[in-house]
């Protein structure tokens, strides 16, 4: 196997909740105490994104999938761990040194109503990244590039003089995709790009993303909570729960034979068109808070197969015979 385009190693991200030093200090029982609290958004994630694939990261709200996307893009700095792009470590680069990598990776956000600058025309929105990354380009070069991209994502050229608010959600998302494509990136991080859109528009945008992948040889890191989209779009899938990857597999393998109990529950919960009396796997309780992580396997409190070891020991990723990588003691011990 060739070396991955993007590789994430031991990634951790904590968000501090306790504020300044003075706010952390409390006086209790005649003593000063310092209390620190943090949201443990990502707790040790290892992922490789191969060139040309669409790696989907799925999970429910609060599992850390968006934080992974933002950390990879450099919008957040990791608390620990490394991010490599094309063999080069990029999470510690600053300023000018990071610039070439910023051009090679672009992001598409969830809400096209918030991600377009309301004071810029579409023309300006699309020009900005080019002028930033290619200051030496002539006006004609810039215009030709924008026209080429507008054409390829199905935007009318005369939209250029209009503003973002004049467009519908699907059209705005097209513009956001065009903005990501104008600098010819190799790698696109898409954070729930179709979740805010209607069903018929979702299909349009999904098709557009697939066309762009084919014609430009793009690599995607695709964040979503919608498993039906993953099954259609993803090359491989990583399932996240409470800041950890619990299962990683080829899309086909994952949907045919999910191994982790959480993945199984997640898949059984998708409302399907075929069956009118679904049999959901019921999980106990709800996702615990990422402030105080459970000991051992983060899923043990809701897992029907949890035993003593699961409460104690964090499961490591193991490879199974089907090619799936899964972090579960029950699978490892052959109980599942």
């Amino acid at each position, binding site marked *: 196997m060739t070396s991955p385009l993007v590789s994430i190693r031991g990634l951790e991200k904590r968000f501090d909740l306790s504020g300044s030093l003075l706010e952390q200090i409390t006086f209790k029982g005649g003593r000063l105490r310092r209390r620190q609290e943090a949201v443990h958004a990502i707790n040790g994630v290892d992922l490789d994104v191969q060139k040309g694939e669409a790696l989907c990261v799925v999970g429910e709200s609060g599992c850390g999938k968006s934080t992974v996307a933002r950390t990879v893009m450099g919008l957040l700095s990791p608390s620990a761990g490394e991010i490599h792009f094309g063999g080069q470590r990029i999470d510690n680069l600053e300023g000018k040194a990071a610039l070439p990598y910023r051009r090679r990776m672009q992001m598409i956000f969830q809400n096209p109503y918030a991600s377009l600058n309301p004071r810029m025309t579409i023309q300006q929105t699309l020009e900005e990244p080019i002028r930033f990354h290619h200051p030496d380009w002539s006006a004609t070069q810039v215009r030709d590039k924008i026209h080429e991209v507008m054409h390829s994502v199905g935007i009318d050229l005369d939209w250029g003089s209009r503003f973002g608010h004049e467009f519908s959600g699907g059209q705005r998302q097209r513009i956001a995709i065009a903005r990501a494509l104008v600098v010819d990136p190799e790698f696109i991080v898409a954070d729930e790009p179709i979740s805010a859109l*209607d069903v018929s*528009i*979702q299909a*349009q945008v999904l*098709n557009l993303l697939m066309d762009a992948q084919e014609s430009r040889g793009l690599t995607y890191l695709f964040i979503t909570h919608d498993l039906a989209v993953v099954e259609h779009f993803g090359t491989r899938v990583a399932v996240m729960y409470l800041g950890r990857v619990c299962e990683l597999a080829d899309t086909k393998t994952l949907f045919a034979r999910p191994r982790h109990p959480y993945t199984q529950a*997640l898949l059984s*919960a998708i*409302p*399907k068109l075929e069956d*009118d009396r679904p049999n959901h796997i019921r999980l106990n309780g709800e996702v615990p808070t990422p402030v105080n992580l459970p000991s051992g396997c983060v899923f043990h409190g809701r897992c029907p197969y949890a035993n003593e070891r699961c409460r104690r020991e964090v499961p490591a990723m193991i490879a199974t015979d089907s090619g799936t990588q899964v972090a579960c003691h029950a699978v490892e011990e052959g109980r599942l």
Partner: protein
Amino acid sequence: MALLEVKDLDVRFAVRGGDLTALRGISFSLDSGERLGLVGESGAGKSVAAFSILNLIARPGYIAGGQILYRGRDLASMSERELRKIRGNRIAMIFQDPMMTLNPVLTIGTQMVEAIEAHRKTGKKEARAIALDRLQKVQIPSPGKRLDQYPHELSGGMRQRVIIAIALLLEPEIIIADEPTTALDVTIQAEIMDLLLNLCEQENVALMLITHDLGVVSQVTQRMLVMYSGRIIEQGPTREIINDAQHPYTQGLINALPQMGEPGQRLFQIPGSMPSLKNVPTGCPFHPRCNFATEQCTRRMPEYVRSGNVDVACYEVANLIEQEKRMQEAES
């Protein structure tokens, strides 16, 4: 007689420069204990339809015509005073965002007792007992404790359970649920849907479920309506529509689902997007996006035709049925 019957309902919004028609000639009925799904994309008018049943549409919206018959009495022309006896009591409503519907400064118990006292003459103690019973029915963990908690202390899934418990307080005959699980995660959504389904069956409550999710509709409802641009374009038994949709829009909606496509292949897509109320196309509102549109479609809104047990408003379908009939006649 149907429990609820909506006849030729028109809802308009009075804005500067004339009225916008949000609903045009909506007719449907709901039987006792039946589960009905209302499907459509944003802007189709499904929430307006749900809100107008209990006359909850705020100005500048108003009901411009038609009847909403609940047990033969017209809710559209009823006084606010009379309507209040039915709203929340005989017909309850569940909204999309549980945080918006619960009062953040009152405990769950207070809010539930308040709802009971508004409709029944009961003591505080008795009302609290009813509240506790409903919380048990929605299988909320440690229900007694929840009565004294505030909404912000509960998770999204639990809040929606509380909302369902409140809807059930006065043993309604109809629950109107407007996207009840859209704000929730898949696993929680599945649990809440199961719960709603089981409770409606147990208590024989009729459910009107508004959603954009065809998967949910197909699992929960017996009949469904598909709305587009303020009109019902197709209605009939859910299974029949899901398996063999007649209207080109419904077909497109189903085929555009990622699960209908071959993995990795392009999805079926309906070109364009839903028209805004300001410029609804003449004739069939779907014709600019429709592959089968003819000159006829641009002129007049098609009448409903019956195909199997499904009512469809489409000239193409009408023509096909006509052709089939002629062929059968020719054969015999």
